[in-house]
């Protein structure tokens, strides 16, 4: 068998799956990820569908498959710079960021202890701070500290250099251009949450207790900024009312005119998490339609039976901030009454927006890559081509891995 070399761009759960599947049937894959760790959005979840387990176990299995297979190579903190050529012979330039901490790191953490600079913890969407020398999260793969180039004082400080016993730090490291040839290329570039700040009437950014669904995931996660406690960010107290606003920007011509298909299930999951953790809490979910399909429908029944949760049909189009209190406005359509609900915490269910909005590759009206129109030998998988949940993404990623080696 002629071994084919496939470039997989994006090291989220789909990119990992594609790379592993390709390697496990005997071909070679290079996984390129711009962040210092792989695992993408899934590692940032507190629990994920369908079994609602924390992401750690699923990822551990995949990390092991990578460790045990020399045909998968990963390149973190790297971006594809340029590519040319055609199917069977793509010449790709990859820019690897300066490796200030190299693979000798044992993750002892002494560099972070002495580091004087703080940065927004991007892993927690900036909800808390960490040091410029940091371990992205406790299950980072590769398991290594990293230094935020934009925050590091470099040679003005050098404190980490003095404490590192393994000679793992080089503050003079330079970025590196890597050139390689590939048989085919898979875009697993995934998604970003839609910027809730764009929706003026929802006042996101104008009050700390208005958060997004991805931020809620971090609060709910045991490794999150509050160690899994659901709180009002304004005073760290437990919220007595939580309102979930579905379709915050989704199904809206002016924002995302499509349905991301996952946010309803995600908010139901959040409601159950909050109900279980807080016990004494009133949870309201305002929705246009509850788009909960397949086996998640059973999940909906579970939510409907929860006494703490009320589902209200009607888009909550407006959050009023009055006297530092939040008032969510919606029409309860089934009763025909305009409601104004005071809420301690409001969670906006923002939708999935493709990460590759600025690429020149053929896209649909919303920015998702069009597999039918991509050049031969180039493929888009999972959320790069359409909004999907994790399990559907994995099926898609597996299918695409087959395409990448069979073309």
């Amino acid at each position, binding site marked *: 068998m002629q071994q084919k070399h496939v470039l997989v761009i994006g090291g989220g759960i789909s990119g990992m799956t594609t790379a592993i599947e390709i390697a496990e049937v005997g071909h070679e894959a290079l996984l390129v990820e711009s962040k210092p760790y792989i695992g993408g959005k899934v590692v940032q979840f507190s629990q994920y569908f369908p079994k609602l387990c924390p992401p750690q176990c699923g990822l551990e299995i995949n990390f092991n498959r990578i460790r045990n297979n020399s045909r998968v190579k990963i390149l973190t903190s790297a971006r594809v710079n340029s590519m040319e050529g055609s199917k069977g012979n793509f010449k790709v330039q990859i820019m690897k960021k300066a490796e200030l901490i190299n693979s000798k790191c044992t993750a002892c953490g002494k560099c972070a202890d002495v580091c004087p600079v703080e940065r927004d913890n991007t892993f927690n969407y900036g909800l808390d701070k960490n040091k410029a020398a940091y371990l992205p999260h406790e299950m980072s793969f590769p398991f290594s500290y990293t230094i935020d180039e934009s925050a590091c004082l470099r040679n003005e400080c050098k404190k980490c250099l003095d404490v590192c016993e393994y000679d793992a730090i080089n503050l003079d490291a330079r970025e590196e251009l890597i050139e390689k040839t590939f048989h085919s290329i898979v875009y697993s570039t995934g998604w970003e949450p839609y910027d809730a700040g764009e929706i003026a009437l929802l006042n996101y950014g104008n009050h700390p207790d208005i958060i997004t669904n991805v931020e809620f995931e971090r609060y709910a996660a045991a490794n999150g900024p509050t160690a899994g406690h659901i709180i009002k960010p304004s005073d760290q107290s437990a919220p007595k009312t939580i309102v979930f606003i579905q*379709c915050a920007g989704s199904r809206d*011509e*002016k924002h995302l005119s499509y349905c991301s298909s996952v946010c309803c299930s995600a908010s139901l999951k959040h409601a159950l998490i909050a109900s279980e953790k807080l016990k004494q809490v009133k949870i*309201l979910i305002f929705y246009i339609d509850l788009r909960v399909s397949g086996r998640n429908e059973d999940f909906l029944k579970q939510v409907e039976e929860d006494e703490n949760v009320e589902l209200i049909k009607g888009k909550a189009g*407006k959050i009023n901030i009055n006297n530092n209190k939040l008032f969510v406005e919606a029409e309860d*359509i*089934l*009763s025909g*009454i305009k409601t104004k609900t005071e809420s301690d915490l409001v969670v906006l269910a923002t939708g999935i927006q493709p990460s590759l909005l600025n690429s020149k590759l053929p896209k649909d009206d919303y920015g998702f890559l069009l597999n039918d129109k991509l050049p031969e030998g180039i493929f888009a998988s999972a959320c790069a081509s359409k909004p999907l949940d994790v399990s559907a993404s994995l099926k898609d990623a597996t299918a695409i891995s087959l395409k990448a080696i069979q073309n």
Partner: protein
Amino acid sequence: MQLITMMPETRNEKRETRSKILLPDIQFIKRVKKESNSDLKACMQCGNCTVVCNLSPEENPFPRKEMIWAAWGQKGMLIADPDIWLCHQCGDCTSNCPRGVKPGNVLASLRSQTIEYYANPSFLVKWLKKWWMLPVTVTIPMIIIHLILIIAGTLTITPDPVNYSAMFPHALLNSSFSILALLMIVGIVFSIRSFWKGMVKGYRLSGFEPESQSSVKERSPIKSGMTEKATSIIKTIWQVKKELLAHKKFKDCETNKFRHLAHAMVFYGFVALIVVTLFAILSAILGNYPMPFLNPVKIVGNLAGLSIVVGLLILIFQRLIKKDAVSSSNFFDWSFLISILLLVITGFFTEYARLVNDHLGYYWYLFHLIIMWYVILYLPYTKFGHMVYRFVAMVFVIQTGRK
């Protein structure tokens, strides 16, 4: 958790009492779509329009329910719906609609169809809505005025210096316009009577309202808060009159701030002109007419006319530049705006011609009177009727305990 408006139990009870079988009126759907330039069926019933509308009441708010009634062809419910008259068409709902279905335009179309439905005789509205019927609708006042002039024998008299009362003697002018006003009032009374009946019928059929007035008080949570005094119709009329005069509702609109200003300029201009006209009739009877240019009454009249012209120009300009964003305009809207604009402008020309002794003034005056007849005679059948319908709908809404 604090629901300010109503407890969940009450809402659940309401949900259960709101189901019935409906038959769609397809022609009606097509017409609303065409007049409002809106893809009605794209509405996903999210209720965002209701939320962003500052005029929409708490219970059974609009325009979300009107959107689905329209999409389902429920003409009967819509023409009996006073809520479409609570809308001041500021465009907040349209500019915030996530599906671009323009609820504001839909309500405008519904209002225009309501005027048509209740107008008596209703063919007049159909004529006035079609631009190619304009020769007919303009000819009617023209013939009447010429008949009056022929009867008075003043059709060809053009004395110098310009003296309009020589052409159209005051006695004839005042009496013919009184008859005209009477005709208009009869038209309004007939239209409004059936409008009120329609609203009462619709209110009873609306499913969740009880049959008799007395039980309304017992069941409606809002009604129970009202005192007997507040339900007296005279009080209500007084309250609505105050509200409309203050133009309070208009100020709550966010998308279209200019609309409030422009409408207020036209509205107050008209109110001032009515008062001025009463003075003018009085002074004509007392023989001191026309009043000198610097007479306070005359100054107020001229300023009021100016205010109307400026207000109208803003409204016309906004309709031209904003087209689909806030309102779609058809002949029904344009003929209303332009007839008033022409009315005031010809009035100014007539006055100017008299001051500079230009004999062309007689023609301006004739033109002015024809438009005057057009506007007043057809008032219940054109968009001018919105004034009366809105007033009555607001009285009805308060009477039924909505606000």
